[in-house]
């Protein structure tokens, strides 16, 4: 019956909004703690991946509807854009979101393994937000060198911000996303499954 499916769809979309909001709050809380401290700033992505897992799982269970994951992935990116980050962050957000969505949807949002992989991909949504460090660095070098800065400082700063940090972030995020997923699975069987809502 189409009227019923339309009602179901609307219900799922509303639920999606609720859990996307919760995910965003997890992002915002961790972001506010991490942003001001440079080393923690780089650890932001893995930390979010660790803590957002239960919200993601609930999103898939309660709002199995096309588009929800993509919106969840893009929303924090848009916020970073508003806070002055570069547009590339939105691009990585879209890529991560669409890919995660496709993976989860291929298992009808119910296949545990696919959902897990989907979460790993999803967790990389903010990766683009870290690129400005390197873009700005190179810009800074050229601008300071133009003004006669010594090559020595440039080398030191370069040594402190090697590009492989980006790969470390990616790997750490995937690992912590796995751990987060484990904690979440545990939490679900302990609470939500037992209570009959998941």
């Amino acid at each position, binding site marked *: 019956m189409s009227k019923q499916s339309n009602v179901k769809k609307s219900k799922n979309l*509303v*639920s999606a909004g609720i859990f996307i909001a919760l995910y965003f709050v997890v992002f915002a809380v961790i972001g506010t703690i991490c942003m001001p401290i440079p080393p923690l700033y780089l650890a932001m992505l893995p930390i979010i991946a660790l803590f957002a897992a239960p919200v993601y799982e609930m999103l898939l269970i309660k709002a199995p509807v096309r588009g929800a994951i993509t919106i969840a992935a893009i929303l924090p990116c848009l916020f970073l854009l508003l806070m002055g980050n*570069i547009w590339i962050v939105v691009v990585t957000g879209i890529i991560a979101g669409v890919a995660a969505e496709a993976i989860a949807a291929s298992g009808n949002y119910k296949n545990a393994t696919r959902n897990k992989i989907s979460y790993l991909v999803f967790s990389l949504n903010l990766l683009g937000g870290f690129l400005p460090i390197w873009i700005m660095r190179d810009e800074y070098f050229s601008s300071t060198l133009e003004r006669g*800065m010594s090559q020595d*400082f440039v080398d030191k700063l370069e040594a402190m911000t090697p590009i492989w940090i980006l790969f470390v972030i990616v790997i750490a995020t995937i690992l912590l996303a796995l751990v987060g997923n484990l904690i979440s699975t545990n939490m679900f069987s302990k*609470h*939500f499954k037992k209570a009959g809502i998941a």
Partner: protein
Amino acid sequence: MNKALRLDPRTKFILLLGVNLLFLVSHSLLVEIILVSFSLGVILIDRKYKSALKYLIIFLVLLYIDRGLSVYLSGFYFTIINFIAYALRRFLPCLIVGKWILETTEVSDFVATMWKLKLPTSVIIPLSVVFRYFPTIKEEWNSIRSAMKIRGFRLSFEHVMVPLLFSAVMVSEELSAAALCRGLDNPGKHSSLIEIKMHGIDYLILGIFLIIVCLTCTLKGVGVIS
């Protein structure tokens, strides 16, 4: 007219993206100053005098660190600080525009804009619920915190997440019920109380911005700036 200026949200978003793209095109100080002046100009038109002054001072201080202090100071730590100051300064126009959008765009206007842009409901419904649910999360967090205090529980992930998620499930059910009983599932025509329309001022601001874009690109093309 003592009412604040109400620009079309579409204008705001174009400006945000535009400023964001433009500041990466060139890192010459000239373009930077033009961009900062432009964003300050926009928020000045919107009567945000205080924040405009604040941003102006921040910009000047950051500029002074880079161009003034660096003549006298050197050393590794200063370089780091200077690097951060440099990066912050470069991002300042984006920040000014972004903050201004966050402060001046009402959720209802934003939702009406999404309908105006004819986005699919699978985008509009979740996003409008997101903004409605944020304040509720805060209320619930306060209430959960009190309950934890009274029982002497320390802050733990599980004790926060479990009640929050239970509550979210309940709210999602009740909220969608209330919305469906007011016709949310109507697949037909949807209208908006709030009218989203481009006015003269929108075109003016977008026009000025377009001139800046052209100017920058020409200068860069000719090779006057890098």
